[in-house]
């Protein structure tokens, strides 16, 4: 029997001892340290682990290492060529960088390797061939159109020998030297070469591996827990239970109601609750130990939906009851509003839970240091909140914990809460050794907070001429077992529930309810995606009732400068809603003719009687930028000049793929008048970078962008006064030109100022804590938010009237982002946000039955792939907001909000069926089509 494995990886021969049970992915990652090959699902679904073996792309996560005997393997690390002139990227890598196909970067090795295998065989791939080849290589940032254009550009380059063609992208109308220009991500090259390090790629000496014992029952009292047998398993170093937590047992971003572990005699509130944690010499042993932990439960009746949770006889889950928050919006007199209405419509809508399905599962590593401090390596959207919560669990002051944020393979709101950070810190503290806790996909799906499932009733009143007179909404939000950000999410759902319209009379009630489902928290769109689906469906229903054009109806009521929102906020500036609507409508009519909302029969087959019917649908949306509601919204940034003339900007704002690092780089480059390449960005280290606040609510471009801008200005001022003093000139004579300082007639390298400043006892850096404009809590009139983004979208769908299947063919999107800082990054956000919306409309459904998660594998939770991708046209609308950096406001969330109703409205226009439950169910749709046609 062979006991040596011979294989060739990227041109190098290896002879390795055989390890039974090893997959090729593990061999590459852990033994050869080729961590560019990523594991996203470990169940042959996501494609991130794709490598090329003997010219064919395969999934290394289910490829036995021993089968690779004698084979040639190419991984992402093997594509670029290195010589004495430096790194030469493969055309695919170069195209992925320049076309903006890289966002979080976690799926990119898989995307590139799959494409590489395709181009090895076919240098003139059609769009269809690309989509066929990449069908199961998932990207949750979903820059599928950019990925496709990158592959085409690389194919052209490989075929012709010409350089990779640049991206075709209409740049912003307003541009400065740097702002508004196309800028590639500073981390893009690392991400396309496999050199980018994510948390699971890190190794520490003597590191242990952790695993958490989950309850697996949705509602129970933990009666008995025995860790004896598990402790005896060789290789197990430590097992901790609730009683071993030295500090606070409970954590939580807003309300500390979430136990890190549930103790004996205490209540289990969802299947993902933890009863014990294990640290062992290997991951295998840690997971095996979980089977040996004996937990017994007294099971209790399950609260499975928010309406049930609100009933008086429902089991009570928390000491203050099941109602997390009753949220109210009151404006004018709705009764009077309905009295004067000519038309009143009322309908109830339902949205399902959805999962972020970031391709990188959660991973945290805790490293105890000799000085008694604890380091946490984690991809987190809120590093400072992690620090505080970990410190509280350990019973330590915050400063004893250092969070060192890592690249994140997608977040979308799903990496705001504590997942493994506390558990690995507790185990590292107990063992004195570094501890890694990596979730597998199954655990990720079970444990982390989801998008709130909702039930939303909307009642609209309007005049015959289309003017809205009153809107009344009632929302139920399923916030699951713990509060997370549930209160905030459902508040946003409620305040936005009358749509982006000026309505004189509004009454909204929302009940955010605890249940025994997985917790619900932040997720791109933050509640507004749900309420926009409801109200935008209603607007189309109203348009039909009034026999009005749906775009006209929306224009008539659209928020504009001078409007007063539901919460009593006067919009003084930056309301580009009507322009968004006009841009989208004009383009839609240009393509579809004057009646885009009428059904268009495309195929009729006599025998099969199959009909494909197409139509367009329209929707609009708005979404706040920033925390708002009276929450202090601030961010710190520090900018430092180095003797070599380079600059560094530092902040603990988070990069989750959305492109903040590029924005910060560009802002500092603009202010200092240097090339963006001269600016480094250091983020997410609580020792080295000032608190940037949470990366949520589309706030970072605005808040941290401003902090960086002001820090750069402050540094510039300090440099100016140093130079003015040194050369005895008025500050007005000091100018900054392309990395040089011009002082009167003299030109000196910027870096040389560092020594001058040090000589005068000054550091060449400036730290600014930026406070966004103050906001008012809900219920007090005034500015609840300091800015809003606006959007309109039109989607063309094709419905198969014999099967109920729906396809989205094209989408036109316009987003008022205030100011486009980086059109390339913006394009990625638009594509990805839209695809996420499309997924929520048509494919994604996180199914929980009586507290038990049905969609507990990626194979059961279907996110859109490249084959679902419609033709996407994006218009940038720029209505600057005065206080935003260069006028910019948020973009991350607004892009995905109008997608769902534009699709469901299009379905109605095609086949006359009103979808009031997400996702669209093809079977239900079919029966309704049949019913309608008798």
């Amino acid at each position, binding site marked *: 029997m062979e006991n040596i494995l011979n294989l060739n990886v990227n041109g190098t021969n290896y002879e390795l001892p055989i390890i039974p049970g090893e997959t090729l992915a593990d061999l590459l990652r852990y033994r050869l340290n080729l961590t560019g090959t990523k594991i996203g699902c470990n169940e*042959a679904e996501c494609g991130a682990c794709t490598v090329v073996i003997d010219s*064919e792309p395969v*999934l290394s996560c289910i490829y036995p290492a021993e*089968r690779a005997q004698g084979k040639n393997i190419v991984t992402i690390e093997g594509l670029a060529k290195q010589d004495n002139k430096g790194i030469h990227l493969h055309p695919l890598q170069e195209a992925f960088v320049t076309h903006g196909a890289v966002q979080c970067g976690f799926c990119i090795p898989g995307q590139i390797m799959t494409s590489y295998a395709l181009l090895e065989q076919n240098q003139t791939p059609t769009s269809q061939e690309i989509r066929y080849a990449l069908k*199961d*290589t998932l990207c949750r940032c979903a820059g599928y159109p950019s990925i496709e254009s990158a592959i085409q550009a690389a194919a052209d380059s490989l075929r012709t020998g010409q350089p990779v063609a640049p991206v075709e992208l209409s740049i912003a109308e307003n541009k400065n030297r740097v702002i508004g220009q196309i800028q590639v991500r500073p981390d893009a090259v690392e991400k396309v070469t496999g050199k980018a390090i994510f948390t699971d790629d890190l190794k520490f000496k003597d590191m242990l591996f952790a695993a958490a014992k989950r309850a697996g029952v949705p509602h129970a009292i933990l009666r008995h827990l025995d860790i004896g047998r598990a402790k005896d398993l060789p290789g197990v170093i430590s097992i901790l239970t609730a009683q071993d937590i030295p500090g606070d047992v409970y954590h939580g971003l807003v309300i500390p109601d979430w136990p890190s572990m549930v103790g004996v005699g205490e209540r289990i509130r969802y299947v993902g609750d933890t009863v014990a944690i294990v640290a062992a010499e290997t991951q295998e042993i840690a997971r095996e130990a979980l089977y040996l932990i004996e937990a017994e439960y007294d099971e209790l009746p399950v609260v499975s939906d928010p309406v049930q949770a609100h009933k008086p006889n429902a089991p009570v889950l928390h000491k203050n009851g099941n109602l997390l928050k009753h949220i109210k919006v009151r404006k004018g007199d709705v009764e009077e509003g309905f009295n004067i209405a000519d038309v009143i419509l009322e309908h109830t809508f339902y949205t399902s839970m959805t999962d972020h399905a970031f391709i990188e599962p959660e991973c945290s590593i805790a490293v105890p240091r000799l000085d008694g401090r604890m380091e946490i390596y984690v991809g987190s959207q809120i590093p400072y909140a992690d620090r505080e919560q970990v410190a509280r669990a350990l019973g330590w002051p915050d400063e004893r914990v250092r969070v060192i944020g890592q690249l994140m393979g997608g977040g979308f709101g799903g990496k705001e809460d504590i997942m493994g950070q506390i558990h690995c810190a507790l185990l590292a503290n107990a063992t004195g050794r570094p501890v890694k806790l990596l979730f597998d996909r199954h655990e990720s799906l079970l444990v982390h907070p989801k998008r709130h499932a909702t039930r939303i009733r909307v009642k609209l009143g309007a005049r015959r001429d289309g003017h809205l007179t009153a809107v009344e909404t009632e929302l139920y939000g399923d916030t699951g077992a713990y509060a997370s950000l549930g209160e905030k999410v459902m508040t946003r759902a409620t305040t936005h529930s009358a749509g982006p319209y000026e309505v004189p009379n509004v009454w909204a009630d929302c009940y955010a309810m605890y249940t025994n489902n997985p917790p619900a928290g932040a997720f791109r769109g933050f509640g507004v995606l749900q309420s926009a689906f409801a109200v935008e469906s209603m607007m189309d229903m109203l348009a039909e009732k009034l026999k009005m054009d749906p775009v006209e109806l929306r224009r008539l009521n659209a928020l504009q400068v001078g409007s007063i929102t539901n919460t009593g906020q006067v919009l003084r500036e930056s309301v580009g809603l009507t322009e968004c609507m006009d841009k989208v409508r004009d383009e839609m009519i240009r393509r579809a003719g004057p009646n885009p909302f009428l059904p268009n029969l495309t195929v009729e087959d006599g*025998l099969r009687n199959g009909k494909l019917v197409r139509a367009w649908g329209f929707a609009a949306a708005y979404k706040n930028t920033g925390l708002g509601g009276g929450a202090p919204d601030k961010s710190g940034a520090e900018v430092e000049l180095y003797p070599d003339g380079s600059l560094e900007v530092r902040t603990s704002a988070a990069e989750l793929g959305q492109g903040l690092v590029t924005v910060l780089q560009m802002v500092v480059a603009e202010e200092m008048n240097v090339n963006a390449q001269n600016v480094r960005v250091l983020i997410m280290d609580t020792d080295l970078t000032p608190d940037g606040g949470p990366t949520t609510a589309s706030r970072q471009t605005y808040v941290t962008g401003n902090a960086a801008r002001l820090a750069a200005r402050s540094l510039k001022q300090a440099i100016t006064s140093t130079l003015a003093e040194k050369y005895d000139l008025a500050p007005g004579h000091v100018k900054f030109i392309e990395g040089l300082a011009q002082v009167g007639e003299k030109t000196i390298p910027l870096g040389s100022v560092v020594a001058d400043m040090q000589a005068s006892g000054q550091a060449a850096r400036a730290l600014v804590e930026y406070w966004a404009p103050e906001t008012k809590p809900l219920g007090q009139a005034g500015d609840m938010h300091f800015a809003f983004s606006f959007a309109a979208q039109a989607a063309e769908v094709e419905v198969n009237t014999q099967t109920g299947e729906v396809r989205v063919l094209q989408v036109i999107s316009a987003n008022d982002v205030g100011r486009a800082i980086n059109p390339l990054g913006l394009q990625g956000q638009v594509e990805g946000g839209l695809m996420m919306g499309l997924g929520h409309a048509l*494919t994604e459904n996180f199914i929980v039955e009586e507290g038990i998660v049905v*969609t507990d594998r990626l194979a*059961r939770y279907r996110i859109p792939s490249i084959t679902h991708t419609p033709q996407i046209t994006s218009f940038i609308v720029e209505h600057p907001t005065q206080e935003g950096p260069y006028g910019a406001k948020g973009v991350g969330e607004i892009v995905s909000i109008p997608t769902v109703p534009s699709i469901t409205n299009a379905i109605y226009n095609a086949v006359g069926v009103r979808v009031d439950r997400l996702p669209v169910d093809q079977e239900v749709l079919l029966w309704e089509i049949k019913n309608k046609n008798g």
Partner: protein
Amino acid sequence: MKLWQEYLRPNSISEAVQALTSSPGQACVIAGGTDLLLDIQQGRHSNVHTLVDITSIPELNQLEVRRDLLYIGATVSLNRIASSPLAIEHAQALAEASRLIGGPQVRNVATLGGNVAHALPAADGTIAMMSLDTQVLVASQENIREVPLQKMFLGAGKTALSTGKELIAGFCIPLRKKNQASAFKRIMRSQGIALPIINLSAWLQREGDRIVDLRIAAGPAGATPRRIASVEDLLRGNTIKDGLISDAVCELLDQIQFRTSPQRATAEYRHHLVKLLLVDTLLEAWDRAG
């Protein structure tokens, strides 16, 4: 828990069978492993001691014409079948099904042998082969026996293979003659747990406007993959026209009792779709045979 303790890569069928029978613990054949490894990992398969990887056995990796048969070795990858001119010529339904199973990376390793060994009632590759009059070559220490495909399935997940003693070596499909053709179609559900909800494969021989002979298989139509013989009988020898097809649809609906699977499809929906699939697939094969 290790996925396996011992991994063997025999170079011949007899070595493989020997390896299966002499394993100290449970031994399992692995070809692509795309289902098997996940089943082990996710606890749906009992612990395995020995995996016998049959992908290095040259005989099992052939796809060629042998006299009047198309021979497809058990370990030929689905992508190879999907793009093989021989398969497209002689077993078009199978080539079409192979193109639809899994994703491209999975198809580079997944095999028909695995598809059949899993004995799922509606595996695309199996359903396609059911309509193609496929014989399975089953190898044991003693000999290689031929088993008609439909006789391979004893129940959901259960095959006629003698576990630990036999393995699937390959498949034989009669070569296509003039005026014969096949087609395969399926309908997916893209919401929620996103799985194919129904598939159907048809093979037929025509003579002018008459169906001389045909075979139809659909899944899921019971615990095991099956042919719909009475529909075949009804159509066989007849001229294709609207009335006949509606009769065939009625017969088909009589024959198949669909189940409602939660989150996939109700019986009624499958009932509705299978009508479309029958007509569509039949006519596709009909046109191709012309």
